[in-house]
């Protein structure tokens, strides 16, 4: 009789617990809906994580994680979204799930300015997925990533490949024609980027030359005039037999300005590259977004 009582108790515990856990999931989903309606996506993201924590169903866990990442994306907390999605185990999942997770991961990394990881996720997605349609669905994001990495030729090739695919399959994106891609990715519009190391070497050979190369003529002139001025003053001091003062003060000041000029030339080249490519990329980004629309 005692054993029977124990068995019944265990059965009741199991039944009531499963009943409570089901009602808990429903309660959480109701709370999430309320938070989403209030546009409080942060609370919604946390509640999705709670749903992931309490549920035992693997599909519900996956759903909760993806939705939590989406909520974080909406409020610009890309890193949190990446953190949630990285916990998903994709072993044995079908192509659509792999695409959904990896594409989101890549997008979040792209938005987080982590372009190398974003590209790695897309490449991993292409390896894991068997259906080539998904490969082309991720193409536009890949193009955007290439643009940010100044790989415009690769971006152009990828755009053409995707365009051909969409054209063959009569998909929405096939409205773009090859001439449009060629015109926007015309090499004559590519920004001519400056080499920071070249700028540094030029400034090392001739003070101010690196700044001129980086298109900053004022700073180049100031650097040249300052160093030659100090050198001239030191020479004047030596000619007037102020050997100690001229050599010590002159060499200290020249060394400072000379080294500073080299570092500055390198910085200016990077600065120039950043703005030039940013302007060009913003045009390309607008173009890609228009295609998506």
């Amino acid at each position, binding site marked *: *009789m005692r054993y*029977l*009582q124990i068995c*019944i*108790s265990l059965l*009741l*515990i199991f039944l*009531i*617990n499963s009943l*409570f856990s089901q009602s*808990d999931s429903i309660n959480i989903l109701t709370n999430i809906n309320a938070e989403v309606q209030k546009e409080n996506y*942060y*609370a919604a*993201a*946390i509640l999705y*994580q*709670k749903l992931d*924590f*309490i549920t035992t169903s693997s599909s519900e866990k996956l759903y909760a994680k993806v939705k939590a990442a989406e909520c974080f994306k909406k409020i610009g907390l890309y890193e*949190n979204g990446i*953190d949630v999605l990285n916990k998903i185990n994709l072993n044995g999942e079908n192509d659509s799930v792999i695409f959904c997770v990896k594409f989101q991961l890549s997008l979040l990394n792209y938005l987080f300015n982590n372009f190398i990881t974003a590209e790695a996720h897309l490449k991993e997605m292409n390896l894991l997925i068997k259906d080539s349609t998904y490969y082309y669905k991720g193409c536009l994001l890949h193009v955007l990533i290439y643009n940010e990495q100044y790989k415009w030729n690769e971006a152009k090739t990828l755009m053409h490949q995707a365009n051909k695919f969409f054209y063959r399959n009569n998909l929405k994106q096939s409205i773009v024609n090859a001439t449009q891609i060629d015109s926007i990715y015309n090499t004559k519009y590519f920004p001519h980027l400056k080499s920071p190391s070249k700028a540094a070497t030029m400034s090392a050979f001739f003070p101010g030359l690196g700044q001129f190369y980086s298109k900053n003529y004022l700073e180049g002139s100031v650097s040249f005039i300052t160093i030659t001025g100090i050198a001239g003053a030191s020479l004047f001091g030596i000619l*007037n*037999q*102020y*050997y*100690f*003062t001229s050599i*010590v*003060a002159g060499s200290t000041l020249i060394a400072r300005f000379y080294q500073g000029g080299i570092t500055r030339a390198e910085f200016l080249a990077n600065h120039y590259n950043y703005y030039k490519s940013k302007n060009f990329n913003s045009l390309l980004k607008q173009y890609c977004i228009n295609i998506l629309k």
Partner: protein
Amino acid sequence: MTIPLRNSLSYIFIIIGLCCSAQRNIDYAFVQNLIIQKKNTQANYYLNYFKHSFSDDSLNFLRGYNYYLMKKPDSCSLSLIKINPSFVEWNKTQLLLSINLDYSSNINQAISTLNQIQNDTNPIINQIKYTLYAGNMLLLRNLTAYDTIVKKFDFNNIAYEKSQINLSELKIRILKHKEKSAIVAGMLSTIMPGLGKFYVGRKGEAMAAFSTNIIFAGMAAEAYYRTKSFKSPQFIIFTTLFSFFYSGNIIGSIYSAKKQNKSIKKQINNEILANMHIPIANLFD
């Protein structure tokens, strides 16, 4: 199948009660999980936004522990101080509160918090309490009280053994440490630029001060040698520069001595706090 009705009903009520309490604990477990995953901001938000899901003590404990991990000792103390003595982990909570009060520089309040801890059945908690007491006495530089407490140390568990040894070493360092005199540092710098800083223990700064003064003195001497006049503009400029650096070096040495004394005291205090903190971190791990 002839289970008495009264027994069956009581079983069902017990089971339902157990299940309800288990569901209430889900929120607690979820926040703990967020904390373990180092999502402290999210845990904090959840605790503030969904506070009705927790009992007062659980809420304050989780908040306090989360603030402790977020390195906010003031907020942590404010939360932990509200917990009632009936709380299950009261002694552990008081230890955590005490170290956070120490980090907020409320040493006397930390000691009175430790006084509230009753002798625990767990010897580790008692030993950590003594370690914290001893640490507080070192922070107050009350070495006699420290010696009394140190007799209770058993150096017997990996969780606090190292800290207890380190505190004894720190006591020796406190005894050995002699403060640098600002007057001596200033006088030494007057005799020879940089010597005061060398005495304070800042060798790099001493070398820099010495070479700068020598260079300006050399320039002033060269100006005099060339012009043979104390009134020449070259001599006046370099002598003025030398005077600025020379007097600046003396004042700097005085400040350096004071700063060095403060910095060594702060360094020792930080080491004491770290050694008080390690057993707590081990306890909550």
